[in-house]
């Protein structure tokens, strides 16, 4: 690892424990400038702790971290001038309007033209005509956009997004994703945490899978998916007595042992090449005269990613 100018975020051996239990257990991270890095992991894996340390809100017990070339422990002021943080709460003053919020944060960030910056951001995030309405009366999606706008006031080199779409409806989530893609086109480095593989897949150039406070896998979404056995095929049978036969068929077309869930009459298996596998599967079902209620090809869920990566440990 190096801290060359091409590195926007560098973390080495970060450790942090709360009351004796380790939240981070030697976490390493290396995000090149201009990249979108997705930190993927379940609740309690250490994603938020990582973001809080990198954004100077929390002090690590051990290890070091550089953000935009500034050491988080020795030069927190330098880090704060280079970052934007959008946390899990919409951290805005609910009694102020959107404009009043942005003007306040712009002034506190010591920007000269606070009012102009607020106007720019309101227009960019479709909040220009919200007038004097207090942010507390915004919809969830609007509040999130305002929060993102507040995180962008300083034109940060590095933007931290901590579960940016948790709790948003699908429409608001798509808006958020579009906003993030725009940012990246502008050259901002983004470190985002998420519990959803789909979100990391859509937005990230590189994914770091975190579990128990350390990175257990990293790579591009494609690399990870091929390592994880790629797509899954699910078959739901009409009659429960067909489960055994379907499991037998899937064992032949799949890459690994099929997993049967009798309660929902479903069997699933990871496959190498989904079109060919699907062809083999439907042919075998027809030959043995098994009625399938549903057949679906899908991405692995986070649970399955974890089962694969941890060998069933987690």
């Amino acid at each position, binding site marked *: 690892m190096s801290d060359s100018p091409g590195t926007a975020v560098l973390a080495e051996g970060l450790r942090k424990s709360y009351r004796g239990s380790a939240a981070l257990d030697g976490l390493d991270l290396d995000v090149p400038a201009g990249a979108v890095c997705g930190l993927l992991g379940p609740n309690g894996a250490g994603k938020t702790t990582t973001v809080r340390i990198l*954004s*100077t*809100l*929390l*002090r690590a017990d051990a290890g070091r971290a550089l953000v935009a070339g500034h050491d988080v422990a020795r030069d927190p*002021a330098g880090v*704060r*001038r280079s*970052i934007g*943080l959008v*946390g*899990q*709460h*919409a*951290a*805005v*003053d*609910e*009694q*102020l*309007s959107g404009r*009043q919020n942005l003007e*306040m*944060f712009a*002034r*506190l*960030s*010591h920007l000269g033209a606070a009012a102009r910056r607020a106007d720019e951001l309101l227009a960019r995030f479709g909040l220009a005509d919200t007038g*004097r309405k*207090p942010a507390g009366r915004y919809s969830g999606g609007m509040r999130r956009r305002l929060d993102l706008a*507040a995180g962008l*006031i*300083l034109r940060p080199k590095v933007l931290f997004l901590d579960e940016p779409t948790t709790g948003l409806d699908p429409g608001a989530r798509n808006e958020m994703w579009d906003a993030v893609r725009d940012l990246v086109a502008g050259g901002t480095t983004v470190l985002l945490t998420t519990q959803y593989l789909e979100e990391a897949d859509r937005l990230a150039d590189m994914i770091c899978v975190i579990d128990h406070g350390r990175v257990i896998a990293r790579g591009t979404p494609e690399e990870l998916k091929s390592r994880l056995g790629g797509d899954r095929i699910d078959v739901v049978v009409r009659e429960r007595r067909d489960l055994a036969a379907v499991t037998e068929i899937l064992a032949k077309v799949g890459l690994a042992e099929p997993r049967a869930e009798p309660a929902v009459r479903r069997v699933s298996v990871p496959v190498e090449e989904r079109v060919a596998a699907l062809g083999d599967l439907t042919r075998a079902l027809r030959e043995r005269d098994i009625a399938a209620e549903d057949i679906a090809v899908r991405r692995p869920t986070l649970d399955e990613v974890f089962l694969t990566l941890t060998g069933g440990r987690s």
Partner: protein
Amino acid sequence: MTAMLGRLGWAVADTWTITRRDLTHWVNQPAQIVIGLLFPVMIVLMFGYLFGGAVALPGGGDYREFLMPGMFAMTMLFGIETTFAAVAGDAAKGVTDRFRSIPMSGSAVVAGRSVADLLNSVLGLAVMVVCGLAVGWRFHEGAGRAAAAFALLLLLRFAMLWVGIWLGLVVGRPEMLAAIQILVWPLTFVSNTFVPPETMPAWLAAVAQWNPLSATVAAIRDLFGNPGPAGASFAAEHAVALALAWPLALIAVFAPLATRRYRDLNR
């Protein structure tokens, strides 16, 4: 030197920005502040006219003249709730974290809170003075001593500010405001605010005499020239000294506690 002056300049500018934030709340939600200002007025009317007729002061004198200094001090004590709600709300909603992640002056968060809350209390006192004048309260010892009394009241408010900041940071949940209110009430009643402690059982009278709120109330009754039974206790005889000592002691305890708690947010 220049760098230090620059930092100080930003600290002042940031403090004003934070203060303005609260002033903007008043403009945006006037109902909230009006209710806050009228609540003590309601208590004055309730005790001045509803219960007051039944209270006979041991040393004689008009009950409403006796009551008003207590109401002034009570308004300052209620400030603890304003401060608590603001600090706990910011902590819970992540606003405190946002402040800590931008390159603003760290001390401005607290300094701005102090200025805004003290302004709020000055406004609250002004409303109470008008209310007092309307129900027959007067100050009889000249403007100088009256000014000293108001200074003692604001000193008490400043002490409550630090208690409120500390509580807000420790509790961190604005919905606990009701619990704070429940704790503030007995503090107000077990004092010389509404009735002279001399009329209470001896042990309760002792607690009421030593209540920090009683020190301020006794001192400003003296400074305003309002009736207040001049008991023979140590607390009553050294009222002004205690009205200075109590808030200063509270500040000496809670200002470092609150500052340390804020700094330890990064643990």
